[in-house]
């Protein structure tokens, strides 16, 4: 492009971005149109990608198009494979995009739309995208090594062990919390439960079709599966209106939790091709389509946000989860801003597919920007709801009251008017018996998404279908993560147990498969059960725990990245990863401290245990006290582990900078690429 034209274009983008961000940040009192948020986000991402990521690529990482990547040097047609950059981008995005960027921003909307929006934009551009990009590039330069291997090599054995333990811990907590989101979305909902239950035989049918009828024709069978899922959504309406059938599919939270334990165990033990892989294909198919559709819907109808910029709950007294904006907004929204889990994917399959180092920028930085855009859509979906409706859906009965009248009175007294008739009308419109106390974020997101979809396609008469489509969409890919995550954790445990007793490490030995699967399901199942029985809805304690674990993993990834940058003699640019690291340390350490020691029983685990002990004893008191102490211990353990990595990393930095330690990075030696332009 002509240089002058390029300068003019970027000046226009900068001015537009500044105006849109200023409007979003300064707008008060009247509802704001969602297009301001979309414009601010688009401009910020464009500027971040064009200038910041380019600066990182050129000045710090010195990405080299002539350096052969592992995909070229080690190409074997299986793990290592030179792949088109757009294909890798799609593959990477499909792996990092999950329910996190949808659920977290919906929960954080209790503070208003502004805190979440600013954190998603700044967090993604300056932290999340940077983390994904640098870890991907460093893994490419180390033959596609994983984060735990890089942590061990660059920061020492402690780093490797802690990264490994953090991954297991985060998986366990993540699986528990997302299972809780599904439970809360499906409890007492015969329509939703029927639709999701039907996805199991549909996935089995897809597996059988792929294996026996049309081997390997995945896209074809995914379209077939998608049509069957749409039929299941449509059929769910009839089920919910038939008293006998509705009774069968109306499950309590406990019954749903038990069903999920059985499902996840079965999915982990069964052959991958039979259930896990077809469900993964189906969920990816639905996920990519729905995200695209939601984005188009938001732009097409550009709805008005009814949630104010800030709510009164910035003081930490929120009903959705307790705690002030700092640090809790920053651990509640992880995946849309920065997620440690992404570093596992950036150092997993993706680095083995990259054809040229220069493509890591588009794949690492760019895919995270797309994920952040999904979080912006979630903020919009949550904030198009009337605030009273949002709080009625997301507040647990233990806070707002057990009856519809009590809940409406409490929420209206907070300054967010809502009536029982409004909620009843909305519940009927979406085909549910009630929408009160549907904590977890998924039902509120589904209502917001149905609101947007029904305005663009079909009108209010099809709102129930859109709502259940949205619930199915969320539950489908949460269940995919549950079975894939249980399997990943099972492999990791088998790896570790193999050092103690060799047969336990064999991934095809059935006693080991059953034992380790049961171990993992029991571990996350314990936390899920704790959340299901929690009178405050479970999300209040489990989501922050997940956020802390995820952000602590990001801390480990940024420690590794900073160590490598310093060892590369780029210390003067280390602030690029060091500032996000310092911010995350401040956020996670403060949040952990509050979750353990805060004197408010709604925030601090220890204070809640004391409050329970001082209160009237019930049959569940002893268990609840133990659970709170366990949550405190888990948080403290994660904190100590990450503090050790920080300490080890700081020792490395000081050693290298003072000249006492040799600055040697463990990169694979340079090999000139032989790829022609067309092949890459």
């Amino acid at each position: 492009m002509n240089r002058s034209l390029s300068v003019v274009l970027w000046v226009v983008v900068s001015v537009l971005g500044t105006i849109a961000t200023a409007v979003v940040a300064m707008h008060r009192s009247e509802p704001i149109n969602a297009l301001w948020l979309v414009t601010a986000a688009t401009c910020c991402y464009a500027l971040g990608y064009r200038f910041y990521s380019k600066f990182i690529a050129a000045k710090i990482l010195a990405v080299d198009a002539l350096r052969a990547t592992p995909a070229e040097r080690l190409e074997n047609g299986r793990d290592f494979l030179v792949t088109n950059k757009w294909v890798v981008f799609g593959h990477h995005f499909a792996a990092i995009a999950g329910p996190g960027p949808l659920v977290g921003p919906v929960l954080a909307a209790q503070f208003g739309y502004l805190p979440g929006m600013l954190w998603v934009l700044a967090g993604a551009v300056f932290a999340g995208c940077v983390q994904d990009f640098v870890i991907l590039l460093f893994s490419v330069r180390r033959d596609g090594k994983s984060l735990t291997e890089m942590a061990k090599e660059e920061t020492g054995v402690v780093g490797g062990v802690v990264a490994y333990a953090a991954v297991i811990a985060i998986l366990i907590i993540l699986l528990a919390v997302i299972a809780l989101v599904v439970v809360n979305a499906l409890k007492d909902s015969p329509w939703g439960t029927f639709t999701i239950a039907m996805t199991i035989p549909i996935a089995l049918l897809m597996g059988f079709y792929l294996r026996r009828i049309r081997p390997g024709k995945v896209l074809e069978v995914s379209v077939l599966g998608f049509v069957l899922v749409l039929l299941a959504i449509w059929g769910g309406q009839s089920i919910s209106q038939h008293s006998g059938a509705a009774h069968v599919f109306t499950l309590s939270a406990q019954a749903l939790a038990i069903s999920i334990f059985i499902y996840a165990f079965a999915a982990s033990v069964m052959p991958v091709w039979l259930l896990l892989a077809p469900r993964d294909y189906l969920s990816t198919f639905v996920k990519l389509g729905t995200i695209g559709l939601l984005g188009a819907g938001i732009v097409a109808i550009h709805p008005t946000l009814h949630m104010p910029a800030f709510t009164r709950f910035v003081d930490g007294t929120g009903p959705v989860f307790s705690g002030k904006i700092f640090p809790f907004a920053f651990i509640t929204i992880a995946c849309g801003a920065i997620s440690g889990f992404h570093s596992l994917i950036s150092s997993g399959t993706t680095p083995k597919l990259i054809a040229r180092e220069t493509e890591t920028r588009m794949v690492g930085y760019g895919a995270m920007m797309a994920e952040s855009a999904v979080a912006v859509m979630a903020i919009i979906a949550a904030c198009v709801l009337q605030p009273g409706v949002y709080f009625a859906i997301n507040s647990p009965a233990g806070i707002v009251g057990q009856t519809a009248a009590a809940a409406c009175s409490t929420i209206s007294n907070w300054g967010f008017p809502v009536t029982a008739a409004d909620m009843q009308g909305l519940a009927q419109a979406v085909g549910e018996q009630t929408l009160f106390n549907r904590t977890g974020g998924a039902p509120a997101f589904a209502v917001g998404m149905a609101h947007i979809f029904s305005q663009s396609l079909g009108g209010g008469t099809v709102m129930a279908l859109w709502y259940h489509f949205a619930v199915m969409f969320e539950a489908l890919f949460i269940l995919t993560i549950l079975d894939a995550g249980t399997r990943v954790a099972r492999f990791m445990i088998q790896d570790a147990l193999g050092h103690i007793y060799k047969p336990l490490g064999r991934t095809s030995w059935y006693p080991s498969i059953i034992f380790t699967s049961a171990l993992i399901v029991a571990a996350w199942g314990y936390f899920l059960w704790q959340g299901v029985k929690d009178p405050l809805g479970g999300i209040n304690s489990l989501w922050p725990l997940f956020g802390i674990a995820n952000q602590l993993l990001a801390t480990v990834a940024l420690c590794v990245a900073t160590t490598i940058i310093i060892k590369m003699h780029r210390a003067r640019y280390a602030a690029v990863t060091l500032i996000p690291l310092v911010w995350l340390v401040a956020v996670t350490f403060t949040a952990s401290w509050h979750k353990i020691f805060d004197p408010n029983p709604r925030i601090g685990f220890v204070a809640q245990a004391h409050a329970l002990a001082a209160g009237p004893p019930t049959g569940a008191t002893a268990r609840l006290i133990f659970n709170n102490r366990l949550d405190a211990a888990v948080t403290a353990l994660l904190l100590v582990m990450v503090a050790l990595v920080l300490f080890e990393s700081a020792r490395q930095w000081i050693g290298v900078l003072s000249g006492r330690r040799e600055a040697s990075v463990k990169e694979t030696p340079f090999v000139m690429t032989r790829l022609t332009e067309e092949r890459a």
Partner: protein
Amino acid sequence: MIQIRNAMRILISTLREIFDEAAYERFLESTHAARSSTSYAAFWRERESKRPKPRCC
């Protein structure tokens, strides 16, 4: 027109990669096998021995 065709080609390649169709084709090529339920079973046996791909939250 060529650009649209190229974009469609890349989109289909991306979907084929995400949905493991391309991986199966490569497996058939490397093992010199034909598309069949037996070769598809062998493809999955090989995949199951490896650590599964993580899916993020």
